[in-house]
Each structure stands twice: as C-alpha cells, then as structure tokens.
C-alpha cells in the first residue's frame, strides 16, 4: 500500500497555506506506517515520466492571479488529458479555489472576458466586478449526504459531519443541475452566496473554496481522502484530541 501524491504547481499555486494540506496528508499517512511519496509537478515537469502513473491522490491549491496566469497554458496544453482520464476513472483529487474553478467550463471576468477551463465538469465561475463584495469569512457547512453515507467515511472516527474553513474569493461558481456540491452551507457564502452549495463532489473529485488549510481544520476529510486513495482500508485511528478540539472550536466560532 503506497500513497503517491501528485502535487501540481506547488510554487505558483500556493495561497493561504494550501501547501499545508499536502504536509497533513503525508503526516497522517506516515503515522500509520503507509509509505508515502510526494511528486511535485510544475510547468517544466516532463509529464510523460512513468512515476506520474502511480499517482493515487492529486492536489492543486489556490493561487494569486499571477500564479494562475503562470500555470494556465501548461495546464490547458499539457496536463488536461491527464486530469480528464484520471478524474473520470475515479482518481482522487482535491482542488482548492482557483484550481477548483479551472476544472469547469469557463471563468468569466468582470470585464466580460472568458477564460476557458479544463471543461471536465459542467459548471462555470463568474466575477461580477467590484460592486459585488468578495466572499470572505468563516465557513461552516454540512457534508453532502452521499459523503456522509459513504462506507469509507462511515468507518472513520469523525469529530462531526461538518466542514469548516475560511473563504476568500471574488469568483462565484454555479454548478449545473446534475452536479453535487461537496457540502451545504450553514454559515458563509460557499460557491456563490445564493444556492447554499459549497464546492463540488463528482466520483472522487473534490473541489472547494475552503482554505484553513481545509485538512488542518477537518481531519476526517483528510482521512477520507487518504482512505479513498488507498481503496478504503480500515485506517488505524490517530490521536486526534488536539485537531478535533480545534475543529470544534471552529464550529463554535
């Protein structure tokens, strides 16, 4: 059993400490004696090397405008096919903020210009300009029902069925009617501040606007991703007294 994390664009897409998510996955895997490797994939990385085929968990974080611009061409030209195949065949992937937005059909800026996304899932994101305030603040949301009912999730000790985190985004995402969100918002904006959805869940693809980093705030979600990547083994529990306490403190904020 080996965890191989494909960490995309670590230098360009690294906002709000999202790199911490990879550190946390590594920690939680290694503590259980699971062999773990992190493969960093940048714009310059030769993507044909065989090690990329062993990836069983993909991570891509949020980034500033300049970071997203820097990776965009490489993503669309060189990495698109990998993501399409990997995600459509049930590969586990966590995509935060700008990375999440790029999985959709397009991103529409305030000036009306359209940036084409990877088009893997049927949704779009729109920025309405300065007269609509950014979505910034603490978020508390209920995990989508299918995730709560997932056998992989059910066997995990969980501090709650919530996800908590911090959002900061100007773009508002609208999922097509067939797509499930990751969670349903109790406090905060989530995808767009209107329909109470937060993030995206399709097969084993997880998109979210939650920073924190998200896995620091939600140890059960970290373990869920780990378990999914490794075909749902029964993971020995860790001493999560402190991390659960922190999760509850966030819930009560």
């Amino acid at each position, binding site marked *: 059993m080996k965890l191989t994390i494909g960490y995309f664009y670590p230098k360009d897409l690294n906002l709000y400490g999202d790199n911490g998510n990879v*550190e946390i996955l590594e920690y939680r895997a290694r503590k259980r004696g699971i062999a773990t490797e992190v493969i960093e994939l940048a714009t310059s990385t030769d993507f044909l090397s065989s090690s990329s085929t062993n990836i069983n968990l993909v991570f891509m974080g949020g980034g500033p405008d300049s970071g997203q611009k820097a990776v965009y061409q490489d993503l669309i030209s060189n990495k698109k096919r990998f993501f399409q195949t990997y995600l459509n065949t049930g590969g586990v992937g966590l995509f935060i903020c700008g990375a999440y937005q790029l999985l959709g059909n397009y991103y529409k800026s305030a000036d009306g210009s359209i940036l084409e996304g990877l088009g893997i899932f049927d949704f779009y994101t729109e920025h309405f300009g300065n007269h609509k305030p950014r979505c910034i603040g603490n978020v508390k949301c209920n995990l989508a029902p299918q995730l709560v009912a997932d056998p992989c999730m059910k066997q995990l000790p969980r501090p709650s069925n919530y996800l908590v985190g911090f959002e900061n985004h100007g773009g508002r995402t609208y999922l097509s009617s067939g797509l499930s969100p990751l969670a349903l918002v109790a406090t905060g904006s989530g995808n767009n501040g209107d329909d109470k959805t937060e993030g995206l869940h399709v097969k084993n693809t997880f998109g979210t606007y939650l920073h924190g*980093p998200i896995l620091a705030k939600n140890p059960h979600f970290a373990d869920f991703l780990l378990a999914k990547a490794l075909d749902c083994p029964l993971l020995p529990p860790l001493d999560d007294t*402190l991390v659960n306490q922190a999760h509850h403190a966030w819930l009560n904020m």
Partner: protein
Amino acid sequence: MTIKIKLCALLAKLTHYLLKITRLGNGYTLPGKLCLYFYPSLLSTDSFSFSKGLIFISGTNGKTTTTKLLTDVLRSHSYSVITNMSGSNLERGLVTSLLLGVRFSLTKGFTFKYDFGVFELDELVLGRVLARMLPDVLCLLNISRDQLDRYGEPDLILTNWASAITTGFQTKPQNHQTVIYDQTDDLLVTLCNTLSLSDMVTCVPFDATTTFLQLTKLKGTFNAKNINCVQKVAAKYGITKAQFELSIKNVTHAYGRGELIKYKGKSFLLHLAKNPASFEHNLDLIKDDMAPETAVVLILNNNIPDGKDVSWIYDIPQVKLAYTLHGFQTIYVSGTRCLDMAVRLHYCGIDVPPEHINPHLKSTLTAIVANPLVKRAVVLPNYSAMLACRKLLLGKSIL
C-alpha cells in the same frame, strides 16, 4: 499656516490629551481621524514643510525599526526630527503626528519647524498618501505576504505602488525624487527598473551586507537591510560613512522587536513575528537562545491589526519550524488562535502538552513565571499579541 490647520492642531492636541489622561487610548490615531473627518484634504495643503527633507518608509516588515533607526541617527547629528514612532502608520497616524508637532507660543504663534519628517506608512495607504503629500525620499523595504484578507497578494501592492509613485512624482522636479529599495527583493527590483525608465525618479539600492550591522547590538538579515537603508538616506543628506558608524553604535530596538523585558525575576525576549517572512527570520534569530532553561512562547491572535485568517502559519517552512522548535525543551502556545498554532506544530511533529496551550495570555505568563525550570522565555507574538504582552509585562502596550 492656515486657520483651518491651526484649529486642527488644537483639536488634535486636546483629543490626544484627553485620551491620555482618561487612559482610553494611546492618543496617536483618533486625533488624526477626527481632523480628517472635518478636513479630509488636510495632507494636500502643503502646510507641513521641512528644512532638509521628508522621508516615507514602507514595506511589509521593518517599517517601525527603520523609522526608529533613521530618527535616532538624524537626531544624533543634531537634526530636529518629527516622526510617528508609535507605529500608527495609517493616514490618520501621519496626520496625528504632524498636528501634534505644531507648536504654539505667545511670541511666535503657531509654528511647524523641523529639519526632517520621518514617517512609516502602511503598505496599503502609501498610494493614497502619495497622492496628497510627496516625500523627498521614499524607502521601500520589502514586499511579502501579510494579512492576505486585508492586503491581497503582494502583486497588487506592487501595482498600486508603481502607479502611485509615477503619478505622484510627476509633479515634483526630478532632482528631488529618490526611491531607496532592497535590491535583494525581486518584486522591488522589478518596480524600480520600471521607475528608472521614467527619468523622474532616482533609485538607490541597498543590500544585506552586515558591515554596519556588526557595529550594533541588533541581529539578523532583516536588521542588516534596515540599517543599510538608513545609511543610504543618511548619505544622501551628507552624513559620511564614518559619521554614520559612530551614530549607530548605541541604537536600540523598536518596541517588541528584539526587546528584552524583565518581569518577576524572569527575562522575556520579544520578537515580533506577524507574517511568514518575519516568523522565519525570527526562527533564525532564536537558534542562538536555545538552552534548557529557555522556553519558547508562540502567541497567535487574529484581531483586527493581525488579519482574520491565520493560515499564513503554514507558509512558515515546515522543516525550519520543526528543527528550531525541537531545540527547546519547553514550549507554550497562547493567543486567540492558539489551537491553530498547536495543530500546525502537531503536524510538524511537535506535540505541545495540553496544559501549555491556553488562549489567555495572562495565565500563560503566570504559568511561565511559576515554572521553576524556566528562567528565560523567547516570545514570538504577532502584532496585537505583542501589544498585549507588553501591556502585561510592562504596563503599557506602546509608548
């Protein structure tokens, strides 16, 4: 000086005095805020001039230290200097300092007479201030991530600065414009390369060499750069290297930055650590303090001056954080977001005992004082935590 400015000066002084005697505040922000409410274009009026020069200092880290160092050096050469050493660096802080600097006497009336004005300015307000009041020298220390939910990414600050500087300096004759910048900061090099093309601005770089630093009690690369920046300003005004070296021998830290406070028989060494760059810098500094009887205290708040979100603690390099903290036998974690910090440490392989994790700073300090194994504590607080710490240890948060 116009009547309006004179009235503002009186209002500012009265407000400042009332705040001080009622202990409702430090008195370095509200006076300016009030006056700007009645007179929003106060800074545009050219009412404040200096016989030698006006200097603004901005950047993510080092503003307060550099402002203090420059003020101390200029005063040691017998120049009269007005400054905002309280750290109140928004527009209202600048206005408060200027108005409090207005003097009144029966023989001379209202006067404002200083050789130099040396003011630190918050990175986000620099652009707005430059649109109203132009300095002779602008010191740009560095740009890095800090309070993302307030400032946005450094790129945005850079763009804001570039346009404010070019627009602002277009109105001043060319030989009065100097920008002094850190040549090791890529973003600033980019900015200054653009500015140099415009013929309106002279850009003077400073580096991280430690020749001057070694003459002082200050430590660390940050301080080497701060001192080198000050030396460039001093050189512009005719202070030779030899004179400069003499005047920096006795410079001291700004409050909260490498400040040693003795409290109930123990020593507390405060190193302000408010963003990834300054935290990492302080990790390098505190390696020298590792000893069995020295505890390390991390205090993380998320009050208004700190930025609401604390995920920046994951931008502190994991290996350096783990390696440095493993060298200390006793660790305490406090502040409103102590749990977030404790979780961060947990994922670095450092498990702080639960009884050492406490959001109440006073209880933490009491516990340290009561701990017989601890004689000394190195404290890494972020901004409001540093003020709270000073208040408890010294009885005053700023001055």
